[in-house]
């Protein structure tokens, strides 16, 4: 599965497109089942993402976190999602379906493009000009120019404010591994003390990934109780999504 996806520098592929391609490649419908199956491939893709604006990276990570949520549910059937989590799963499915619909529409348009175009006349029948400057004046034109300049799109507003706190999954896996190798055993609640929802999700997912690749084991006494994570295989940082 390595090196399968190439990111053309001039054709930037967003997270929804990436995900949809993975699903369509496998000829699966958009569903929780298919999303959980393409999770690894998606993470593999995210790992290889080139340098790109933080806002774009954040979109990839947000989708990754929802995807891992779906995956974790398939791994831990007892896992109950909160209403908010449930919603983010539904939202992802809905966005994917809608995006798929527009992609289909775009394909239909491609077929029509320039096939039987309508043409505008080469020139309008001449109408003799009658000099009528009306309110045109230096101040009015200056004002119009200034107003126009104000409406020009400004250089991309930085999106950092909105997305800065989001942690990259890979970083969390590394730091989790690091903490575990020092403590050998820790509580999930300790790991995520003071963290917001997004980074709690990322931590949770990182933990699941560690468990999945045999780097750690996790136990939970009962539903909603704290999760205890233990390091199992001290050597070798697990690589996810390969």
């Amino acid at each position, binding site marked *: 599965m390595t090196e399968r996806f190439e990111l053309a520098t001039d054709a930037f592929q967003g997270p929804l497109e990436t995900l949809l391609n993975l699903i369509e490649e496998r000829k699966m419908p958009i569903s929780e089942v298919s999303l959980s199956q393409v999770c690894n491939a998606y993470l593999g893709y995210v790992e290889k993402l080139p340098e790109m604006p933080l806002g774009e990276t954040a979109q990839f990570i947000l989708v990754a976190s929802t995807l891992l949520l779906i995956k974790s549910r398939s791994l831990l059937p007892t896992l109950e999602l909160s209403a908010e989590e449930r919603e983010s799963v539904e939202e992802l499915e809905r966005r994917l379906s809608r995006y798929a619909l*527009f992609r289909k529409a*775009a394909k239909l*348009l491609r077929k029509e493009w320039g096939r039987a*175009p*309508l043409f505008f006349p080469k020139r309008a029948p001449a109408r003799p000009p009658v000099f009528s400057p009306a309110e045109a004046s230096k101040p009015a034109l200056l004002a119009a120019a200034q107003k126009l300049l104000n409406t020009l799109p400004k250089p991309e507003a930085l999106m950092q404010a909105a997305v800065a706190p989001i942690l990259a999954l890979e970083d969390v896996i590394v730091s989790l591994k690091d903490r575990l190798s020092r403590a050998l055993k820790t509580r999930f609640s300790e790991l995520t003390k003071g963290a917001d929802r997004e980074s709690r999700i990322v931590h949770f997912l990182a933990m699941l990934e560690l468990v999945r690749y045999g780097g750690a084991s996790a136990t939970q006494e009962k539903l909603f109780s704290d999760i205890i994570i233990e390091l199992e295989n001290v050597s070798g940082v697990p690589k996810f999504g390969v």
Partner: protein
Amino acid sequence: MTSDLATRLEAFLFAEGGPVSRKKLLQLLECKPDELAKAVDELSNSLSERGVALIKTDTEVALAIAPAVQGALEKAFEKELGREIGEAGLEVLAIVLYRGASTRAQIDYIRGVNSSTSVRTLLSRGLLERAGNPDDAREYLYRPTPELFAYLGVTNGQELPEYATILAELASFEQAQKASEPFGNDGSATSSED
């Protein structure tokens, strides 16, 4: 044989030789919007199966040459027609064509990726245009131009391929929409504004 208003409408559109905004037509014809809409429909019907067709968007109307006759005419459009349009650009066009006028935030959210470059390219090619957003002055709406309809060979949105089907499917998503998505009154979206 058409009504007086439709006759004058045809004459104005012919005299202008390109897309004319409905706003200007209201002034020129000194009529009300619903009267204009009726005259536009009337003229459009009377032109069917002729060498000339009427293109209408929500804001503009134009007379154009029907697809039945091409050949020698294509020269004038060769340049634009020969130009490639990328996947991303087509997706953006599909959104504003089937969904209707949309903000950048909405387009970005639907595509899951920043679409600013595509939108700008489409603007510069005259396939999209900006309009003020009545719901939120801070954001523009992007909508199709008569030229876009012309390249696609349709005279109005309803003639787009599988229009009814796609619209129906789309409606089912928009209904399920949550307030968190950039489609409500609150235009602020997950992604950037321009």
